[in-house]
C-alpha cells in the first residue's frame, strides 16, 4: 500500500455542495439582506481603517480645539473629547487598532482552537483526554480576567493584546472543531480514505477539514466579533497600548465625563456595536448560504 494517486476520497457529497457552486453560494448569501448590509458596513469600516491617514491627515492625539465641543459644532462633526481631540479623527483611526487586534486575535484563536480540537477529535483516546483537560483548564479561568493579567504582565502593546485575547478565547473553537472531527471521521468517505492507505495528515487536512469548514467559518465570524469586544474591553480598562487610539480607549479616557459630555462615550460605543453587529450579520449570512434548508430558523 504505497502512495498511489488516491481516487479523490475528499469529494464526499458535502464537499461537492460547498466547493463547486460558488455562484449558488453567493446567491443564497445575497438573499439575506441583513447579511448584505452587514457586509457593506464592514467593508466601509475596513476602508476607513485602511485609508485613515488619507481621509484625515491629522494626528488623532492632537488637541485641536477646546475640550468637550459638542458634535456638529464648528467643523467638528462628532465634537471633541476631554482633551480637545477631534472625535471623528479618533474614531477613524480607532478602527485600525480595533480591526488589526480583533482580526489577528481571532486568527490566533482559530489556529489554536482548530489545532487542539482537530487533534482531539481525530485521534481521540489519550490525546483527546490530555487536550480536553487543557481546554477545561482554560474554561474555568474567567477569560477577560486572564487576558487582563496577561496584558499587565507583559508590555501593553498591540501584539500582546492580540495574543492575550487569542489565548483566552480559543476553547469554543476547539470544542466545535472536536465535535465536527469526531462526527466526520466516522463517515463512509473517511473510512474509504483510510482503507486505501491515506496517511493521517492527509485525512485530517484534505478529507475531514474541508467537510468541517462550514460551521467553523460561521464560527469564525462570531470569533471575530468576540475578539473585537475583548479588545474594546481591555482598552476601555486602560490595559492596551496607550499610544494607539482605539474605540475602547476613547470611552475609557472619557468615562468620568459621561454625564457632562455623553457623546464622548456613546459615539465610540456605536462604532464598536456596528462593527460587531456587521460581523455577526455576515456570520448569519454565511450560515444561511451553507445551510439553505435551515433558513426557516
Amino acid at each position: 500500500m504505497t502512495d498511489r494517486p488516491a481516487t479523490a476520497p475528499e469529494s464526499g457529497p458535502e464537499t461537492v455542495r460547498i466547493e463547486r457552486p460558488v455562484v449558488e453560494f453567493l446567491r443564497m448569501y445575497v438573499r439575506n439582506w441583513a447579511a448584505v448590509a452587514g457586509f457593506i458596513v464592514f467593508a466601509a469600516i475596513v476602508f476607513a481603517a485602511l485609508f485613515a491617514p488619507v481621509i484625515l491627515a491629522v494626528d488623532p492625539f492632537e488637541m485641536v480645539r477646546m475640550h468637550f465641543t459638542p458634535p456638529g459644532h464648528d467643523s467638528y462633526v462628532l465634537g471633541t473629547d476631554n482633551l480637545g481631540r477631534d472625535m471623528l479623527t479618533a474614531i477613524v483611526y480607532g478602527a485600525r487598532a480595533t480591526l488589526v487586534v480583533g482580526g489577528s486575535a481571532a486568527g490566533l484563536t482559530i489556529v489554536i482552537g482548530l489545532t487542539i480540537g482537530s487533534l482531539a477529535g481525530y485521534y481521540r483516546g489519550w490525546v483527546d483526554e490530555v487536550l480536553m483537560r487543557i481546554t477545561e483548564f482554560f474554561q474555568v479561568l474567567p477569560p477577560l480576567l486572564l487576558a487582563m493579567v496577561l496584558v499587565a504582565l507583559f508590555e501593553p502593546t498591540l501584539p500582546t493584546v492580540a495574543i492575550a485575547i487569542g489565548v483566552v478565547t480559543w476553547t469554543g473553537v476547539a470544542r466545535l472543531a472536536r465535535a465536527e472531527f469526531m462526527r466526520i471521521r466516522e463517515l463512509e468517505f473517511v473510512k474509504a480514505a483510510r482503507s486505501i492507505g491515506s496517511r493521517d495528515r492527509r485525512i485530517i487536512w484534505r478529507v475531514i477539514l474541508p467537510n468541517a469548514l462550514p460551521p467553523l467559518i460561521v464560527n469564525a465570524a462570531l470569533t471575530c466579533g468576540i475578539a473585537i469586544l475583548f479588545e474594546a474591553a481591555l482598552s476601555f480598562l486602560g490595559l492596551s497600548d496607550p499610544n494607539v487610539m482605539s474605540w475602547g480607549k476613547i470611552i475609557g479616557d472619557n468615562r468620568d465625563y459621561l454625564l457632562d459630555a455623553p457623546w464622548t462615550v456613546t459615539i465610540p460605543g456605536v462604532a464598536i456595536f456596528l462593527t460587531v453587529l456587521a460581523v455577526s450579520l455576515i456570520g448569519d449570512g454565511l450560515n444561511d448560504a451553507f445551510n439553505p434548508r435551515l433558513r426557516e430558523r
Partner: protein
Amino acid sequence: MLLLAVVVFNFILLSLVPGDIADTLAGESGGASQEVMDDIRRTYGLDRPFHIQLATYVGKVVQGDLGTSYYFNMPVTELILGRVAPTLLLVVTALVLAILIGTLFGVIASRRPNGLFSHFVTVLALVGFAAPVFWTAFLLIVLFVAMLEIMPLSGLVDPTTPRGTFSWYLDVLHHLFLPVLSLSSIYLASYSRLARASMMDVLGSDYIRTARAKGLGETSVTYKHALRNAVIPVITIAGLQFSHIFSGAVVVETVFTWPGLGTLAFESILRGDTPTIMGILFFSAMIVIVVNLLTDLTYRLVDPRIRSARNA
C-alpha cells in the same frame, strides 16, 4: 486536580513578571538600599529557589492560605472573602434573570415562529451580542441616572443607610438594578434565541405529537412536555458560559464601582499586587468549578438520561 493546575499555572505566570514586590515597595518609598531590598525579599520568601517557592505556595493554598496582599498587607483569603458577596449577588442575579427571562422569551417566540415577537427575539440576540457591556452600562446610566434620575450612579449601598435594616437591603437592590441589567442583557438576549431554537426543535419531535394525540392542551404540551426538554441546552450553555459572565462582571463592577472581586482584581492588576491577583484567579476558577457542578446537578434533575449514564 484542575484547581491544582490553576494554582501552579498562576504561580508560574506571575513569576514571569519582571520586577517584584521589593522593586514596587522600593519604588514607592523613593528608592531603597540593596540591604533593605534583600530584607523585603526574605520577608516574602522571594530569595529561595523557584521550585521551593512554588511548593510553599501550593502547600499554603491547600490550607486555605493564599498569601498576603502586598498592597493591603492583609491575608488575601480574608480580603477576597470580604469582597465575594457583592460579586456573587451580582453574577448570580444576572445569570438567573437571564435564564428565566430568556427562556420565557424563547418559549413565547416559539409559539409563533414567524410572528413579531419572534423577530424581536432574533434582533435582540444580535444587539445583545454586539453591544459591549460597558457601553450598555453607560447608556443605561445616561437613561436612568441622568435623564430619569431614578437610579443611583454607583456603589453597593448609600453609606448613610443603617446597615442590616430593611431599608438597607432595599437600597442594595436599588443599587443592584443597573449593574444586573447591564450584565444580564447580553445573556438574556442569547438565551432567548437559544431557547427559541430549542423549543422549535422540541415542538417538532415525535413525543410532542404523542402528547397531542393523548388529548393534552397546548399549555400542557408547551410547558410540561416541551419546556423541560427545551431548557436542557440553555442550562448547558449557561454552565459553559459562566466564566464569561464572571468576566463581564469585572467590567460592570468597574463601571459602577461595585465593591466586589472584579474591582479588586482590576485595581490589584494596576497595583501589581501579585498575591491578590493569584488569589482572585484561583478563587474565580473555584467558583466556576462549583457552578459547573451545580449545572451538572440541575442537569441530572431535569434529564433522567444523564442520571444513569453520563457522557462528555
